[in-house]
């Protein structure tokens, strides 16, 4: 080990429009260490490391690679200087073969033609030595998620990099695959590589990292050098990552939500039977392999699992975005497996989506329109929309959810992320307030929302159940699930591996998630 950082980021700032993704953060990656970078969604982890990898140019601040400034700040230069990066979203061209993807950017040629056979031999040798075997001559679109990840790693490791940046490498992998990747990272560090590991899984940090940096809202809020006991303290890291919400306060804030035990009604509102879903190229993560769940009227059921174990596919299949390969979905006894989103909504589906941009909010529409999207006829007479009625709905949301600003005609895109989420919540829970919802499908309903609003949203979900809906909550916040659910099902590898009562300790749920 030396005293020279392989990569040094100093005083980095990066702005997107009004938001500061990175706000004066710094990071030093040293050879021989696995340096974990943790923080909530939107804390600036990926942006900061993309700056290290030359993918994004910072607005301000220095990027030094082995004491020399990274200039020009391009991926090509970073690769040349020995910085390799594996991205959170796979950076592979699906129509090209594995080999073509590996060649891309520095294609070997002979007499002006691509000459890939020596490359293939090299890569196969490397793959064998790292146990990362993957077929190289078929289009990437035909490879499994795990194979694609291996391909990404092979590409990153091909030139024996001095620095390896892994941006959430395990998010979409099965547990065994994830451990293999992290073990590889560990091995590389012992061989002198500086490894940066962005992750949400604090247990991974405890097991595999030497050093930890915690980011919040674009700033470094904590740094734990090697040997610091905090590295193994999952609870403490979690508190640092979320900020002013130490667990005691959080429990307190949520206590108002805690509910009396559910009285079981006879009426089954959602029945999912042996559901198989292929995520395909829809970016829905890993597949579902035979999920069966049943939700009765008034029931709140949580879905827990390490990100990328089929939750997203479940959400998209239940909402009707993704077709199901096998199995059935029934709402109030009616088979809706092959039915459009619009028809499912007519049968009482309400959906709070995890991907707000794709399924929740259209930036350029006025907020009051977003609030009644898909239900304009409810505020219309003979096909003519009554804007005063839209404004009244908006005023209602302002009051119920503390929506800000109180500007019904302002474009939804101009609202903050938290307030956009409130717009979606207000829209989706309208029907349940009137007792018309059969199923409320809520995916990460409180992500990116402040504590008070989160409590309000949780309370609304419980209210929806009280009003007769079945509520399915997909969340990575286990405390949230334990607070509001009647039971928690755990998804792993696209299947339900456990069904647990809400008072199950977090550690037990965690064990079920990790397998």
């Amino acid at each position, binding site marked *: 080990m030396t005293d020279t950082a392989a990569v040094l980021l100093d005083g980095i700032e990066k702005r997107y429009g009004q938001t500061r993704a990175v706000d004066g953060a710094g990071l030093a990656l040293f050879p021989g260490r696995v340096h974990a970078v943790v923080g909530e969604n939107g804390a600036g982890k990926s942006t900061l490391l993309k700056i290290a990898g030359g993918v994004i140019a910072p607005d301000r601040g220095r990027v030094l690679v082995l004491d020399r400034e990274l200039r020009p700040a391009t991926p090509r230069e970073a690769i040349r200087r020995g910085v390799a990066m594996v991205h959170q979203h796979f950076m592979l061209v699906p129509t090209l073969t594995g080999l073509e993807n590996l060649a891309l950017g520095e294609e070997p040629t002979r007499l002006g033609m691509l000459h890939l056979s020596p490359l293939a031999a090299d890569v196969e040798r490397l793959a064998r030595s790292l146990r990362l075997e993957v077929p190289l001559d078929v289009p990437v679109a035909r490879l499994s998620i795990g194979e694609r990840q291996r391909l990404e790693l092979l590409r990153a490791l091909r030139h024996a990099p001095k620095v390896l940046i892994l941006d959430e490498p395990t998010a979409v992998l099965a547990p065994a695959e994830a451990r293999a990747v992290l073990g590889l990272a560990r091995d590389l560090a012992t061989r002198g590589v500086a490894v940066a590991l962005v992750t949400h899984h604090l247990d991974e940090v405890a097991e595999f990292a030497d050093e930890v940096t915690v980011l919040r809202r674009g700033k470094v809020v904590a740094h734990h050098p090697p040997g610091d006991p905090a590295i193994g303290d999952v609870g403490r890291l979690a508190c640092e990552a979320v900020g002013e919400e130490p667990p005691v306060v959080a429990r307190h804030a949520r206590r108002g939500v805690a509910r009396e035990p559910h009285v079981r009604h006879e009426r089954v509102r959602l029945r999912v039977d042996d559901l198989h879903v292929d995520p395909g190229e829809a970016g829905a993560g890993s597949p579902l392999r035979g999920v069966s769940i049943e939700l009765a009227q008034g029931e709140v059921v949580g879905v827990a699992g390490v990100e990328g174990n089929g939750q997203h596919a479940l959400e998209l299949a239940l909402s009707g975005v993704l077709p199901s390969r096998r199995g059935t979905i029934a709402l109030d006894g009616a088979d809706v497996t092959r039915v459009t*989103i619009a028809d499912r*909504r007519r049968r009482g589906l309400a959906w709070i989506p995890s991907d707000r941009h794709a399924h929740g909010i259209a930036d350029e529409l006025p907020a009051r329109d977003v609030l009644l999207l898909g*239900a304009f006829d409810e505020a219309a007479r003979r096909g003519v929309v009554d804007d005063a009625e839209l404004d009244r709905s908006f005023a209602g949301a302002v009051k119920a959810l503390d929506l800000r600003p109180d500007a019904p005609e302002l474009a939804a895109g101009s609202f903050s992320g938290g307030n956009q989420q409130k717009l979606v919540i207000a829209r989706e829970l309208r029907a349940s307030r009137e007792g018309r919802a059969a199923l409320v499908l809520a995916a990460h309903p409180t992500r990116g929302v402040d504590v008070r609003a989160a409590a309000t949203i949780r309370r609304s979900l419980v209210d929806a159940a009280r009003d007769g809906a079945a509520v399915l909550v997909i969340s990575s916040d286990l405390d949230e699930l334990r607070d509001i659910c009647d039971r928690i099902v755990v998804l792993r590898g696209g299947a339900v591996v456990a069904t647990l009562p809400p008072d199950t300790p977090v550690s037990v749920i965690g064990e079920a998630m990790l397998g």
Partner: protein
Amino acid sequence: MNAPRAARTRAILLAALLSAIAFELAVLAWGESPGSILAQLFAGTWGTRFGAGQVLFKATSIALAGAAAQIALRAGLFQIGAEGAIAVSALAVGAIGARLPASVSPIVAWPLLALVAASVGALWTLPIGVLRARFGAHEVISGIMTNKIAGALVGYLLARGLAERASVHTAPLPPGATLVRLGPFPGSAANVAIFVAIAVVVAWAWIARRTVFGREVSAIGASDTVSLATGIAVGRRQIEILALSGAVAGLCALNDVMGYKGYAEEGLSSGVGFTGLAAALLAGRSSVGLLATALFFATLSQGGLSINARIPMEIVDVVVALVILFVAVAPRIDEKLGEEDRA
């Protein structure tokens, strides 16, 4: 909503300035004086009653085609197929109109032929919507293809019997099926179809802003995935909007066939679909803006004829093309200039 509108106004002004410079350079290169060319262009259009009438006549078709484009753009779709709808509708109106009894009354003939024009236009662009909504085929490609098919079809039908013997056009419409010319503009082709155009443009602005249909279409234009996720029937709306757009484009037959020629022929009002699209791109969502750009393009087109002896009238096409290009890139230039201001 104010910031984007201000940016859009800036962008349009910038585009106007750049286009004016390009025009001046072209005129100077030709060895003429821009000032006197402009004066002549103005004299040949708004300078006489005839010229003004011709401008209004041309603006009528451009406004209708522009409304067709604007309608589709509201849903985020490019209606390239207007050109074909115009051609096929014109032939249908000409062929059916000519078969009406010689004594037909306008009270019967006008609404009947307007219905023919709109429904043929709608039917013609219907497949574009179906291909888009059900098969995911891009509406621009299908639009280009249907335009070309329309051209061939019109030629074929005229050659195989719809044209009058020994001519290349349909038999003339009976007097009761032709539209009344506008009195204040003697000798020009300006006719009452202009009121139809104005009514359509204004009506669409109302429909788009006030009705459930219009609001859903605007939502689809803002994000089709979000609209789908919230239960809007995106595919059906896309089909409806492209058919409605085709119906409006088809109404051009009122102006060209019933208001001007009195018969249909090949190539009648060709190119107007594209000019209309250009006008809609310039006008954005504004109805006043659309009528204004229609008048602007019509003035250029008519003015081109009046300056043709001194400078080729094709300079007008070049200017229109440059206006479209500059308007398309102006937001980006505006953004860049803004960044430099802040820095």
